[in-house]
C-alpha cells in the first residue's frame, strides 16, 4: 500500500508502507529493512538525482520524552563528517518530517555482512578478510578522528556488490571528549560483540572496537559469533572469562594467520589486543597476500562464497576484482589499505627507519619530523609492528593533548596534573627481555597549559631511561616543543624528507612489484610515466598513492600492462577513481600535448635525457619530403 505524501505527519503510521512519500528532496522508492530504531528506505534524491538511504526513526517526536531525535541524528552526522573516510557510510542530512525524524545517508548497493552470512553461510577466508580489512581502515580513520564507534558488528558493515565495504551506524559513537564523561560508561552496543571491559562497566576505547571487529571476523568466518548464550548474563560471563574459541575448530581449513588475527583481536585485556585498528589492517593484508600467493590452497574453498550479482562487463574502475584480473595483484596497491608496505620500500624510508632505531636506542628520546603525506605515520606503525614481537609498543594517534591520548592508549587514567607521572610509571613497569617499552605519539601539536604534562613525560623518559619516547609531527614540531619548554636537540631529530624523482620511480616500481602475485606478468612503466608521477606528486606519499592507483585503474580499463605518461597525466588530473567511479578518460589522438611535452622535456633534461620526440607518422615523413 502506498500512502499519500504527508501522511506520517499525523497520528499512528505504518512506517513500512510509505513508498512514494516525499521527505524534502527524497522520494521513498523501496523498503530496505527495519530494526529496533526504525525503518530504512531506498529513496531517490530528486535534486541531486542519486540513490539515497533514508533511515526513519520509529519514535515520534511526542514519544521522545522531551528529547529531540534530530539532535541525535545530527550528532551522528557530525561524527561521520569528522571522519570523512570512503569506507564510512556518509550522512547527507538529518531532518524532521511532521511527527517523525529521518536521516539521509549514502546508499550502498549490496547488503550487510550479517545478511551475507545469513544467506550464504560462512564466508570464504578471502571475502571475510577483505571485509574486515576495509572495516579496520574505517575504524582507524574514526579513531584517528577521536571517535569510538561502540557498535561494530556484521549488521553495521555494508558490503557492496563489488566487495567494497563501508562501516555505518555511528549512532552509538562517542568522541574522546565525551568518553571522559559519565555517559561513556553507559553500556551500549550488541552483546555478542561487546568487549570485556564494557561488560565491566568501563568506558569504551579504540581497543573495544578492535575486540568487536574481532568478534565480527569470527562470525564472518564461522557463521556464528564467538560466544553464544541463552541469556545476557551467560554471554557476559563468556566474554569476561571463557577462553576465546579457535575459529579453526569450526572451520579447520582456515589458515593459521586467520585464527591468529581473531585470537589477538579477542584478547580479554585491551593491552593484549592489537594496539590499533591499523595493525588489524596490516595482518588482514598479510592474510590476503598469503591467499593470493597460494590460490590453489584450501583457504578459498573452506566455505561457500557469498552470492554476488552479475559482474559488470567492463572492469569497474579501481575495484579490487578487476585489478586482480587485469594485473595479477595480490592486493590493491597504493590504496590506504596497502600503504603499510610503503615505508619499507627503498629510500629514504630504509635509512630513516635505521636512524630512528639507533637514536631511540642511544638517547631514549627522538622526534620524527615529516610533512603531511610524507609517510611518517605509516613508518611509525610499521616500526611498532616490527618491534612489538620483542617489547611493548604503543602508537598513539588522533587529536588532543599528547599525554591524555597516550594515557587512553596505554590504559591509565588521565588524571589532571599527575597524568605524565602515572603514565611514565606505567610505561616503566612493562620491561621485557627484548627491550624497553616504546611510546610513539603521533601528530604532536601545541599543548595545553604550556605543555607541562608533555614536558614532564619527556623529562621522565630522559631521567629514568626506563622507556623510549618518540614524538612525531610536522615541520613545526621542533618550534612547537620549544614553546612548551622541551628542548629535544638536533641529534635526537630524524627528518623524513619528500622523495626525490629517482626515489619516487624506485618506490613506485617496488610497490607494484611487491603487490604482484608470483605468476603474474610484469607491469611496465615508461620512464616518462615515472617522470610525470614525480612531477605531479612532488614526492608526497599520499599523492603518489592516489595517482598510482588511478594509473592502474586506467590501465586496467584498457587491459594494458604498460603505463605511459598519458596514464600518469590523466591519473593526476582526477580524484581517486576507486571511490567515485566515473567515466574514465580516453587517450587523445595526439599525445603528448604541447604543455605535457614541455613538462616531459624539462624532466628529461634534469635526468640527462634528450627531449621527448614529437609525434611523427609515415604520412608526416612524406609531408616533410614534399
Amino acid at each position, binding site marked *: 500500500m502506498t500512502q499519500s505524501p504527508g501522511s506520517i505527519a499525523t497520528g499512528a503510521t505504518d512506517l513500512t508502507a510509505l513508498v512514494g512519500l516525499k521527505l524534502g528532496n527524497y522520494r521513498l522508492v523501496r523498503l530496505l529493512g527495519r530494526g529496533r530504531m526504525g525503518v530504512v528506505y531506498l529513496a531517490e534524491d530528486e535534486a541531486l538525482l542519486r540513490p539515497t538511504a533514508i533511515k526513519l526513526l520509529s519514535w515520534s517526536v511526542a514519544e521522545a520524552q522531551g528529547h529531540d531525535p534530530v539532535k541525535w541524528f545530527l550528532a551522528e552526522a557530525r561524527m561521520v563528517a569528522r571522519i570523512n573516510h570512503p569506507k564510512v557510510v556518509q550522512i547527507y542530512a538529518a531532518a524532521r518530517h511532521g511527527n517523525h525524524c529521518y536521516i539521509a545517508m549514502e546508499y550502498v548497493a549490496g547488503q550487510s555482512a550479517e545478511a551475507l552470512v545469513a544467506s550464504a553461510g560462512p564466508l570464504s577466508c578471502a571475502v571475510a578478510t577483505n571485509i574486515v580489512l576495509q572495516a579496520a581502515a574505517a575504524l582507524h580513520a574514526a579513531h584517528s578522528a577521536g571517535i569510538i564507534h561502540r557498535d561494530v558488528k556484521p549488521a553495521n558493515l555494508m558490503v557492496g556488490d563489488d566487495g567494497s565495504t563501508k562501516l555505518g551506524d555511528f549512532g552509538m559513537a562517542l568522541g574522546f571528549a565525551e568518553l571522559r564523561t559519565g555517559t561513556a560508561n553507559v553500556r551500549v552496543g550488541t552483546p555478542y560483540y561487546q568487549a570485556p571491559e564494557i561488560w565491566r562497566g568501563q568506558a569504551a576505547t579504540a581497543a573495544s572496537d578492535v575486540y568487536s571487529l574481532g568478534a565480527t571476523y569470527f562470525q564472518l568466518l564461522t557463521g556464528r559469533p564467538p560466544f553464544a548464550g541463552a541469556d545476557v548474563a551467560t554471554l557476559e560471563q563468556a566474554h569476561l572469562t571463557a577462553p576465546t574459541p579457535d575459529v579453526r575448530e569450526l572451520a579447520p581449513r582456515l589458515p593459521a594467520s586467520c585464527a591468529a588475527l581473531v585470537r589477538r583481536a579477542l584478547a580479554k585485556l585491551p593491552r593484549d589486543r592489537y594496539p590499533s585498528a591499523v595493525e588489524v589492517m596490516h595482518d588482514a593484508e598479510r592474510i590476503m597476500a598469503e591467499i593470493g600467493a597460494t590460490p590453489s590452497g584450501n583457504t578459498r574453498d573452506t566455505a561457500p562464497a557469498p552470492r554476488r550479482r552479475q559482474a559488470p562487463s567492463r572492469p569497474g574502475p579501481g575495484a579490487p576484482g578487476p585489478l586482480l584480473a587485469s594485473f595479477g595483484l595480490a592486493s590493491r596497491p597504493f590504496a590506504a589499505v596497502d600503504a603499510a608496505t610503503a615505508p619499507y620500500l627503498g629510500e629514504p624510508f630504509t635509512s630513516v627507519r635505521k636512524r630512528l632505531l639507533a637514536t631511540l636506542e642511544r638517547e631514549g628520546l627522538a622526534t620524527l619530523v615529516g610533512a603531511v603525506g610524507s609517510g611518517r605515520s605509516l613508518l611509525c606503525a610499521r616500526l611498532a609492528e616490527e618491534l612489538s614481537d620483542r617489547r611493548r609498543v604503543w602508537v598513539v594517534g588522533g587529536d588532543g593533548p599528547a599525554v591524555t591520548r597516550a594515557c587512553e592508549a596505554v590504559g591509565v587514567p588521565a588524571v589532571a596534573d599527575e597524568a605524565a607521572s602515572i603514565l611514565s610509571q606505567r610505561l616503566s613497569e612493562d620491561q621485557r627481555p627484548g627491550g624497553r617499552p616504546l611510546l610513539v605519539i603521533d601528530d604532536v601539536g601545541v599543548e595545553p597549559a604550556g605543555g607541562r604534562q608533555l614536558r614532564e613525560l619527556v623529562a621522565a623518559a630522559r631521567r629514568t631511561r626506563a622507556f623510549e619516547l618518540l614524538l612525531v609531527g610536522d615541520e613545526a614540531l621542533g618550534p612547537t616543543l620549544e614553546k612548551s619548554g622541551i628542548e629535544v636537540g638536533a641529534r635526537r631529530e630524524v627528518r623524513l624528507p619528500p622523495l626525490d624523482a629517482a626515489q619516487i620511480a624506485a618506490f613506485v616500481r617496488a610497490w607494484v612489484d611487491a603487490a604482484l602475485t608470483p605468476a603474474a606478468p610484469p607491469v611496465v612503466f615508461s620512464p616518462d610515466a615515472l617522470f610525470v608521477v614525480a612531477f605531479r606528486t612532488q614526492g608526497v606519499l599520499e599523492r603518489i598513492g592516489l595517482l598510482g592507483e588511478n594509473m592502474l585503474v586506467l590501465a586496467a580499463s584498457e587491459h594494458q600492462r604498460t603505463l*605511459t605518461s598519458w596514464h600518469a597525466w590523466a591519473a593526476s588530473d582526477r580524484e581517486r577513481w576507486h571511490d567515485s567511479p566515473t567515466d574514465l578518460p580516453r587517450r587523445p589522438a595526439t599525445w603528448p600535448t604541447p604543455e605535457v611535452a614541455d613538462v616531459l622535456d624539462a624532466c628529461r633534461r634534469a635526468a640527462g635525457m634528450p627531449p621527448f*620526440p614529437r609525434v611523427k607518422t*609515415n604520412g608526416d615523413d612524406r609531408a616533410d619530403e614534399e
Partner: protein
Amino acid sequence: MIDLTTLTRLPQVKSAVLSDAAGGLRDASGNVDGEAVAAVTGYLTGALADTGDRLGLGPLQSISFSGRDRASLVLVRGDVVLTTVVEPAAALATVEKTVDAGGE
C-alpha cells in the same frame, strides 16, 4: 645513429621506435605508441640480455619474433634499441640487412 626516416621508407616497415636500454623513447615513426613500445622493449631486452648471458651468447644483438600477419625485429646496438614492425613477416631478413648495411 639509426635513421628512422630511411628505415620507414621501406614498404615492409610499418613502424619503427628508437629507445634506450632503460625504455626511454628517443624517436618513433609510423602509427605506433612509441613510448609504450620503448618501455616494453626496454623491459624485454633487459630480461633477454640476462638469458643470453646465462646461455653464453655474448652481448644481446637482436630479437625477432613473428605473428600470423606481422613480425617484429628488435636490434640492440650498444645503448640504442631499435624496434620495428615488419609486414609481411618474411621480410624480417631484408629489414635487418638494410639496417646493418646503412641504417646506422
